[in-house]
């Protein structure tokens, strides 16, 4: 004979039948939730369109990896583990929760389940509730006692979020507790009717509670049974309706956010989805000036921010005291939308964001390094938003003075320095170099199958020209048939685009694409990761492009390029991953392979390496911008290298080189630290068939460093 008890639906709550009461609660709760969600959807319906419905299979795969698989969470171990446990607990509890809610309106009595899938599932849910409950207490303790730095709210962004966080943690804990009391009291009631049958998982929270109440009077247990049920129903619906008012909305929105997340790394969204480049002239306003100019996916991102602070924790601009914190880009926008699209009343909208919730410097401070996007467990995108906000400012003529000059120079001379086009290939005419390495300029008389795209800084900057020469020598040794565009080459426009000057970017791109097509090359090589990223992702209809480190790695593997033992065995080398080679394009191993192929070279890894690399300070137009900051990013990076015991930093990007060398000077580390480009280092160590009378004198003398 199996025990049965009345279900809450059948019970009477203060003169009201349970079934009626819970029906009302369900209906009100769901209606409330539906109303709230509808209100939250309102701005999304007014938003710009976004192209997120393509490649469904890939999106589903990523959903499995990042949403279901919580892929990014372990990057912050403690919080990551807590969240994985919490998330798993919720998933496990999902069916249980719904059936539990159903008890309030379902007709039949409750019987004990002692075997079968349902029973096993029940045991699992006991543990799940326990784990979730413990996670809540641990998380609350962590917030209140250990106070991880990334949760702190800088004064300028308002008051701390701790109270709200604790409130939510408490609510979930209460829900788990209420469910557990219900399970405990349900088991106790069933046990009273028949011999005690173990239906609770040993040492789980319901089990513990059951042991605590089993001695109480039947009436007490019955009341606990009813009250806990009511409490869990109310708490459930309260949470459901409260979540859309804060960071917990990510529970619902994350599924969609991750599904619709951006698939193409390294690209920048078009000015308007659905508007081709040719039609852009007709667009009335470029970029994001008011909230409604964001796309619906970006608005969804604002809702999805869980305030975890991982993005800002990794953000190099934030680390050096620039007025940018990615977390607050999201939180401020979310608060704006809550304020302007309230539950009741009409929405006030159309106010400018810049000068409102965002300051100009805040938006110009971003180097587009992508550390924030790399870190965010919800796959929230930041770079596209920054670019769109910049497009809006540029459209209004609101460009910082320090950037106007290089932009004007790019327009008139095709490079930000304002130097003459005909001098773009002067680096190749350096006397000692020219005698040992001839560099073809591709024109009507010369052709080649590979283009060495040099880009502006490597062409014009006195220091970076040695990278160009080293690259040319390496390519020659690798047997490449290559040439350069010379004065026909214009700046790749990579930063021009990311700083919001889309039309100037398109003009530069058009000129480059034209020149590339006319040259007839079938392949492009560059030593500049920004140019690499532009040619790979921003340019269409150009031959495939490689970074020089890939060419060298291949050459070393095949034996075409042989490397001499390291010139100075005492040096300790640390490789710095450039943002646009590493994080944005996932090229981490080739440069390391090359370094490790130099016999006797001692290499160490900085703790922030690979996709956690710390931006050097930015490239392109960022070199001209005068940010408000407490320290240079490069200085922090040089200190990181010094901490590993390195005395040489190896980079693979001319902008990294500028920033690092500058930082070495500024931080007074001259003599203790030097910087060298990967290509220069390889060039120094290449076994040459015909060793030329080299201009090794022009390269930094790291042999003696």
């Amino acid at each position, binding site marked *: 004979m199996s025990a049965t008890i009345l279900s809450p639906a059948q019970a009477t709550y203060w003169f009201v039948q349970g079934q009626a009461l819970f029906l009302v609660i369900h209906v009100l709760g769901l209606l409330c939730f539906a109303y709230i969600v509808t209100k939250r959807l309102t701005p999304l319906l007014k938003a710009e369109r976004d192209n997120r419905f393509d490649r469904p299979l890939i999106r589903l795969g990523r959903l499995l990896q990042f949403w279901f698989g919580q892929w990014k969470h372990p990057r912050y171990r403690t919080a990551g583990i807590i969240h994985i446990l919490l998330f798993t607990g919720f998933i496990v509890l999902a069916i249980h929760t719904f059936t539990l809610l159903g008890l309030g309106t379902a007709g039949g009595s409750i019987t004990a389940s002692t075997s079968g899938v349902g029973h096993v599932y029940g045991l699992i849910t006991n543990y799940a509730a326990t784990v979730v409950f413990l996670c809540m207490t641990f998380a609350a303790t962590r917030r209140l006692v250990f106070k991880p730095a990334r949760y702190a709210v800088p004064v300028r962004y308002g008051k701390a979020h701790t109270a709200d966080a604790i409130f939510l943690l408490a609510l979930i804990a209460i829900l788990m507790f209420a469910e557990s009391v219900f399970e405990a009291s349900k088991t106790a009631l069933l046990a009273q009717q028949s011999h005690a049958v173990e239906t609770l998982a040993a040492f789980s929270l319901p089990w513990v509670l059951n042991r605590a109440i089993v001695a109480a009077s039947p009436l007490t247990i019955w009341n606990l049974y009813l009250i806990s049920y009511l409490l869990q129903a109310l708490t459930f619906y309260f949470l459901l309706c409260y979540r859309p008012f804060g960071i917990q909305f990510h529970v619902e929105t994350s599924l969609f956010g991750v599904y619709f997340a951006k698939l193409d790394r390294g690209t920048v969204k078009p000015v308007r989805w659905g508007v081709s480049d040719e039609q852009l002239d007709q667009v009335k306003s470029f970029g994001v000036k008011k909230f409604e100019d964001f796309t619906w996916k970006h608005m969804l991102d604002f809702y999805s921010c869980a305030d975890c602070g991982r993005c800002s924790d990794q953000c190099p601009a934030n680390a050096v005291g620039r007025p940018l914190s990615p977390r607050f880009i999201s939180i401020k926008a979310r608060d704006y939308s809550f304020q302007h699209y309230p539950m009741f009343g009409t929405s006030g909208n159309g106010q400018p964001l810049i000068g409102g919730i965002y300051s100009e410097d805040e938006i110009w401070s971003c180097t587009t390094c992508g550390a924030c996007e790399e870190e965010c467990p919800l796959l929230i995108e930041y770079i596209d938003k920054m670019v769109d906000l910049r497009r809006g400012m540029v459209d209004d003529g609101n460009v910082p*003075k*320090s950037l106007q000059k290089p932009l004007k120079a790019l327009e008139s001379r095709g490079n930000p320095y304002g130097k003459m086009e005909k001098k773009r290939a002067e680096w190749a005419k350096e006397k000692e170099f020219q005698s040992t390495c001839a560099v073809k300029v591709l024109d009507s008389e010369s052709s080649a199958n590979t283009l060495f795209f040099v880009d502006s800084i490597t062409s014009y900057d006195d220091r970076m020209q040695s990278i160009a020469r080293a690259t040319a020598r390496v390519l020659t040794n690798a047997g490449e048939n290559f040439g350069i565009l010379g004065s026909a080459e214009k700046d790749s426009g990579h930063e021009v685009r990311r700083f919001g000057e889309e039309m100037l970017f398109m003009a530069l791109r058009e000129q480059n694409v034209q020149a590339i097509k006319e040259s007839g090359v079938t392949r492009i090589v560059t030593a500049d990761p920004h140019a690499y990223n532009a040619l790979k992702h921003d340019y269409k209809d150009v031959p495939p492009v490689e970074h020089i480190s890939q060419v060298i790695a291949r050459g070393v593997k095949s034996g075409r390029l042989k490397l001499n033992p390291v010139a100075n065995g005492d040096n300790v080398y640390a490789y710095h991953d450039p943002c646009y080679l590493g994080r944005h394009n996932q090229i981490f191993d080739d440069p390391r392979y090359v370094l490790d192929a130099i016999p006797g070279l001692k290499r160490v890894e900085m703790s922030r390496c690979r996709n956690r690399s710390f931006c050097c300070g930015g490239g392109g137009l960022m070199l001209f911008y*005068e940010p408000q900051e407490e320290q*240079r990013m490069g200085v922090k990076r040089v200190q990181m290298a010094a901490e590993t015991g390195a005395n040489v930093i190896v980079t693979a990007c001319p902008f990294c080189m500028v920033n690092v060398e500058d930082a070495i*000077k*500024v931080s007074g580390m001259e003599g203790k630290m030097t910087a060298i480009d990967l290509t220069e280092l390889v060039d120094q160590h290449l076994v040459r068939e015909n060793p030329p009378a080299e201009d090794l004198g022009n390269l930094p003398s790291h042999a003696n460093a």
Partner: protein
Amino acid sequence: MTPRIFAYIAHKGGVADDSAAELLAAAKKIDAGASPAALVTGWGAELDSVCEILRGSYAEVWKVASESLAYPNAELVRKALVKVLPPGCIVLVPHNHFGIDLAPGLSIKLNAAFVSDVMGIDGIDGASLKVVRQEFGGQMSTHVRCDISTGAVVNVRPGAFKAVDGVPAGGAVVDKSSDVGALTAGRRYLEIIAAEAGDVDITKEPVLVSIGRGIQEKDNVAIAQELADAMGAAVSCSRPVVDAKWLPKSRQVGSSGQTVRPKIYLACGMSGSFQHLAGLKGNPFIVAINKNPKAPIFQVADVGIVADILEFLPELTTKIREMKKVSV
């Protein structure tokens, strides 16, 4: 027959401006035998005192006294001069904020030709005056021919003509005040707003480390400050540095900034524009450091070094600090 030459003389506090001697020298270049007249406007005892001083170098001093000219409002001065000047004369004015304000309009009212910012004079050739000017920020010089058949107003670059030792002229003061009458203009002088005093008064510093565009960015200004600290000097600059807001206006040396008279002037990363050099007086020892060996500053400096100031200055600072450690 060369036309009559007049030199408009500015003055302050009863003392004639340095340009008085320069304009005299310029007049002699136009016509070696000329005896130019000084032309002075103003009011009261200060004006009288200036006229007395000018008698020592000019054969004639034309005094135009009017209360409305107590402050030299170019609009009013022009109206006065038009009433006083004979037709077909040549008027020399310093090319500064006043000359730029006065001369072009004056030339129209006198129906005379106008040449601006003259830094060299070749002399009169028939009905033309041949002068030398510069264009493109000093990158190019040009010979200019000016038709003086109905007279000319010539703005003379300050410092371009060195005062000549002359025979004391013992000139007479000619009072032309009564020719002027009442003066009104659509522009009325209100007041002078003095520049904000900075923390450092560069006009009193004997050694200046001066920076120009070559410093490249705000953060590098510290490099110059460190050198200045090591040398016991102060940092000054040219206009572009102030326009970029890397240093306050009080540090600017030049025609629209401060006039300084140091013993030693280190011009670091400066091209040597004349507006800047106009603020440098008293024959200091000028050291020029610039990446570009063709920079005009090397013409004016006593000692030149072709180097990147961002590298050279820190090295110099280190050396001076070492030196001071040893000597102390």
